[in-house]
């Protein structure tokens, strides 16, 4: 009798904790405390922000497969097996997202390296003065003679 009551009590407490987490997260999403506005946004090639189709696809696949898994688990009362085909489906979607993100990062690196390449070519050597780091500026102010020399 006692172990059953204890197990029941633990089950109730765990259920309340899990449902509490879920309710808090859903409530914060609905009240806007968790910001979902950028959930599909990626940075474009020119620094613009646009919705990403690969993110949307990954979101759809994750929700549908997680929902189906949950429903089948609830119906059967046990954890069900996931066939390799479903994992391949998620892999296609996730791989597409990763490659798409990698392409965007690669473009940003290339566009960030372009000014340096121009400088190495000798066309931008007389550009505006570079900003002085804070610690170097403080050192020159504390030792004016050294700076004057």
């Amino acid at each position: 009798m006692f172990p059953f009551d204890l197990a029941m009590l633990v089950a109730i407490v765990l259920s309340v904790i899990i449902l509490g987490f879920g309710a808090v997260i859903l409530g914060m999403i609905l009240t806007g405390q968790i910001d979902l506005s950028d959930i599909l946004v990626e940075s474009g090639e020119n620094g613009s922000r646009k919705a990403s189709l690969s993110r949307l696809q990954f979101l759809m696949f994750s929700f549908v497969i997680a929902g189906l898994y949950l429903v089948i688990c609830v119906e059967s009362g046990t954890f069900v097996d996931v066939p390799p085909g479903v994992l391949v489906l998620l892999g296609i979607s996730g791989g597409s997202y990763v490659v798409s993100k990698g392409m965007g990062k690669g473009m940003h690196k290339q566009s960030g390296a372009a000014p340096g390449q121009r400088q190495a070519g000798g066309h931008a050597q007389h550009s505006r003065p570079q900003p002085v780091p804070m610690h170097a500026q403080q050192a020159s102010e504390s030792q004016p003679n050294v700076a004057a020399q």
Partner: protein
Amino acid sequence: MAPVNAGPIPDLLSIVLTLWLLGLALSILYAMFNGGIQMNGLFSTDVDNDGIADEFHPERVQLLLISLLGIGGYAIMTMNAASASSTALTVLPDVPEELMMLLGASNTFYLTGKFGRNLKRG
């Protein structure tokens, strides 16, 4: 393996978890239609960053359509299999090979288009 779903607590927990996942999906869907989630530029690109879409990309449209049809078809297939079976399913139905090939080709087409645009812009 024998079913372990017995008693009011697992039943209640499973129902509430299903409702929670449904609520999360509905809140995201509502935010998409309401403008709470930015959907600008899903099918087009603003090249000069002036707020006006300059290029339309049909390969993005085909990816969205094939993804929606593919994942929707798989969901319907799973529900049909669950309702047709006299006992509860112990494994998710496998994805048809044709569907995987179609989705793979569609994603490859989308990535090729994106890669080509990146190459063109340098």
